[in-house]
C-alpha cells in the first residue's frame, strides 16, 4: 500500500472493521479485562467518537486496533480489518509500515508526547523519511508546508526548536502535523485536548475537524468529554468497563439515548444553561474493577433501574434503530425506567 497511491484512491466504503476485539492484560493482581469484545466499523472519511470514563478501556481500544501494545502479558483476540487487511496477525515489520503512513495517532499530553531532545523539524521529517523515503531537503519543504497547514507561525524558526520552547497548544499542533505527514486514511486522537486550556482546546478541535475534512481522513476521537464528541463526530460509541454499551449517530445519541449509563453520564455534567446551585445527578459508586467485573450488566451495581435480571444476565447489544445499538434490559423509556423515575420524583421522559 504505497501512500502515494492512497492519496489518489477513492475513499469510500468501509475503512476499518473491528470484530469481537478482546484485549486483556496479565498483571500481578490478575487479568485486567481492559477491552472485552468490541465490534464496530468505520467508513472512509467518517468521524467516530469513543466516550467513557477513565478506565473504561477506550484508550486501550484505540491502541489495540493499531497494534501499539506491549508484546508481553497481553492477550489480544478478535479481528481488526483495515482496508480488508487483517492487522492482528500482521508482523511487527509490516505494522511499522502502516503506522504513521496509513494510520496515525495523537496523544493526550503534548508535553510528553514529543521527544524532548530532538529538534521539532527532525521529528516531523521522520515519518516522511521512513515511509516516503524523502530526501532531507524534500522532507524539510513538506514539513514547512505542514507546519503552515496546522497554523504554526514562523515555521522556519520552529523547525530548529525543541519541544520545551513551545506552548502546549503549539505542541499539539506539531503532533497533528506529524500525524498528517504521510496522509494517513485514519487518525486516532486519544484525548487530544484534555491537557489544554479551554480556549486552546477549541482551536485544536477546529483544526482537527478542518484537516479531516480537507484530507478526507477518518477520525477516531477518544475522549471522556461528551461535549467534545457532540460537536465533532458523526457517530459515537459509549464504552463502560471494557464493553460497548451504546452506539449511535451523534444526533440520535443525544436526542434518543437508550442506556441508563449514557443518561446518567449526561446528567452528571454541570451545564451552563442551568442556574447556579442546580443539584447534579451523581452516579453513585465508582467504575468497576476490570479484574473482577460485576456479573450480568457491568453497570448494574451503580444503576438505579437495575433488577435481579441485570445482576445475572448480561444484556446483548440490540438495535433501537438500524444504526442505534444499546445493551440494556431496561433502557430509557422502558416501563421499569418510568417507574423508577416516578419513584425518584423526576418527570419521566426527556432531559
Amino acid at each position: 500500500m504505497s501512500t502515494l497511491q492512497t492519496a489518489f484512491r477513492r475513499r469510500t466504503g468501509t475503512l476499518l472493521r473491528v470484530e469481537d476485539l478482546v484485549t486483556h492484560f496479565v498483571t500481578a493482581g490478575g487479568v485486567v479485562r481492559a477491552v472485552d469484545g468490541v465490534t464496530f466499523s468505520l467508513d472512509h472519511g467518517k468521524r467516530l467518537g469513543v466516550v467513557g470514563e477513565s478506565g473504561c478501556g477506550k484508550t486501550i481500544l484505540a491502541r489495540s486496533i493499531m497494534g501499539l501494545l506491549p508484546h508481553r502479558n497481553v492477550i489480544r483476540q478478535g479481528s481488526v480489518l483495515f482496508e480488508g487487511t487483517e492487522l492482528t496477525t500482521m508482523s511487527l515489520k509490516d505494522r511499522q509500515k502502516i503506522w504513521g503512513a496509513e494510520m496515525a495517532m495523537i496523544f493526550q499530553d503534548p508535553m510528553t508526547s514529543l521527544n524532548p531532545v530532538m529538534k521539532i523539524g527532525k521529528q516531523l521529517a521522520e515519518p516522511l523519511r521512513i515511509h516516503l523515503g524523502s530526501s532531507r531537503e524534500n522532507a524539510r519543504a513538506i514539513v514547512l508546508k505542514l507546519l503552515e497547514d496546522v497554523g504554526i507561525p514562523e515555521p522556519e524558526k520552529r523547525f530548529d526548536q525543541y519541544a520545551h520552547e513551545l506552548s502546549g497548544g503549539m505542541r499539539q499542533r506539531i503532533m497533528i502535523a506529524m500525524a498528517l505527514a504521510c496522509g494517513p486514511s485514519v487518525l486516532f486522537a486519544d484525548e487530544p485536548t484534555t491537557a489544554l486550556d479551554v480556549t486552546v482546546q477549541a482551536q485544536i478541535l477546529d483544526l482537527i475537524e478542518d484537516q479531516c475534512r480537507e484530507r478526507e481522513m477518518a477520525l477516531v476521537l477518544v475522549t471522556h468529554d461528551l461535549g467534545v464528541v457532540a460537536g465533532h463526530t458523526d457517530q459515537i460509541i459509549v464504552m463502560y468497563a471494557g464493553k460497548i454499551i451504546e452506539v449511535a449517530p451523534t444526533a440520535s445519541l443525544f436526542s434518543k439515548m437508550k442506556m441508563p449509563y449514557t443518561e446518567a453520564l449526561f446528567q452528571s455534567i454541570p451545564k451552563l444553561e442551568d442556574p447556579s446551585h442546580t443539584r447534579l445527578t451523581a452516579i453513585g459508586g465508582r467504575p468497576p474493577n476490570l479484574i473482577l467485573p460485576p456479573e450480568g450488566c457491568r453497570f448494574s451495581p451503580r444503576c438505579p433501574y437495575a433488577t435481579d435480571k441485570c445482576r445475572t444476565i448480561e444484556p446483548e447489544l440490540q438495535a433501537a434503530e438500524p444504526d442505534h445499538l444499546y445493551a440494556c434490559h431496561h433502557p430509557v423509556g422502558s416501563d421499569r425506567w418510568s417507574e423508577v423515575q416516578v419513584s425518584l420524583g423526576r418527570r419521566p421522559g426527556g432531559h
Partner: protein
Amino acid sequence: MKYFLRKLGQLVIVVFAVTFTVSLALGAIPYAEERIIAAKGSGAINEEEKNKLLDSLNLREPTLVQYGYFVGDLVTLDWGVTLNGNQPISSSISDGLKISLRLMIYGQLVALLLAIPAAVFAAYRSGGLFDRFSTTFSFGFISTPNYVLATVLGLLLTVRWKLFPAISTDVGFFEAPWDHFTNFFLPTIVLALPLAGTYMRLLRSDLINTLQSDFITTARAKGVSTPRILFGHALRPSLFSLVTAAAVNVGALVGGSVVVETAFNLNGLGRRTVLGIFASEFRLVQITVVVLALVYVMTNFLVDILYGFLDPRVRVGRLG
C-alpha cells in the same frame, strides 16, 4: 551562558576550599615536623639544615600566610623536590598521572562498551532471558571488590596459566603495542568489570523508564523501526545517570585506582600518594590531592556542559 558562568563559579569555590583545606592539613597533622625530619633521615642532617627544611614548608607562619605561600608555589609550579631521592615533585606527579590516566581511560572505555549495548538490549526485553542473565552478571561484577578480582585473575591468568606478566610495567602503546596490551589488559579488566556492572544497571533502569514515556509511543505510532527507537529516540534522554556516574568515577579512578595499581605494581598517581603518606612526603601528597581535585572538578564541569548537549532543557536552567 548564565548556566555556564554559574557552574564556573561553583568550580572556583570548590577549588578554593580544596586548596585551603589541603594547605592547612599539614599543620594539623600530629608530629608533622618530626615525621618530615625523620623521613629526611633524622640523624643525617644538622640543626641548620633542619631549620631550613622546616622554613621552606612555612609551617610556622600564620594560617593565611601559609595558604598564600602554598597557592603561590602551586601557581608558579615551584613544587620542590621529594624528601627522599630528591626527585622533582612535578615529574613524579606527571609520571604517575600518565599511568593513572591511561588506566582510567581504558577502564572507562571498556566499561562503557560492555555496559551500553547490554543495557539497551536488557531494557528492550526487560524481564526476558538476556535481561535476567545480564542483571545477574552485573550484580556479580558490582559485588566483586577490585582487590578480590585482582587476586583471582592474578592467580588464574598470571600464576597458573602465565598468560600475562605478573608485574605490569608501563610500556607505551607506540613503543611496543603487544606488550602494552598484555601489561594493561588485566588492570583494565579489573577496573572495568565492576564499573560495567554499575553502568549497566543505571542505564537499564533509566532506559526502562524512558521506554515507557509517551514520546516513545509517538515514535512507534510513526512507524519508526525498533533499533531506531532504541538508539535514536530512547538512548540519549536516558544517559543522564550514566554520565553522572561516569564523571564521579573519573575522580575516583584517577586517584582511587590505588588498589589496582598496588595489585599490578603500576606506579600510578594513587600508589605514589599512598607511598607518599607512609613516607611522610607531605608536600607530594598535598600537591597530588590538589591535582586530583582539579581533574575531578574539571570533568564534572565538562559533564555539566555535556548535560546541556544531552538535554536542551538544561540549557535554559529548567533542570540544572
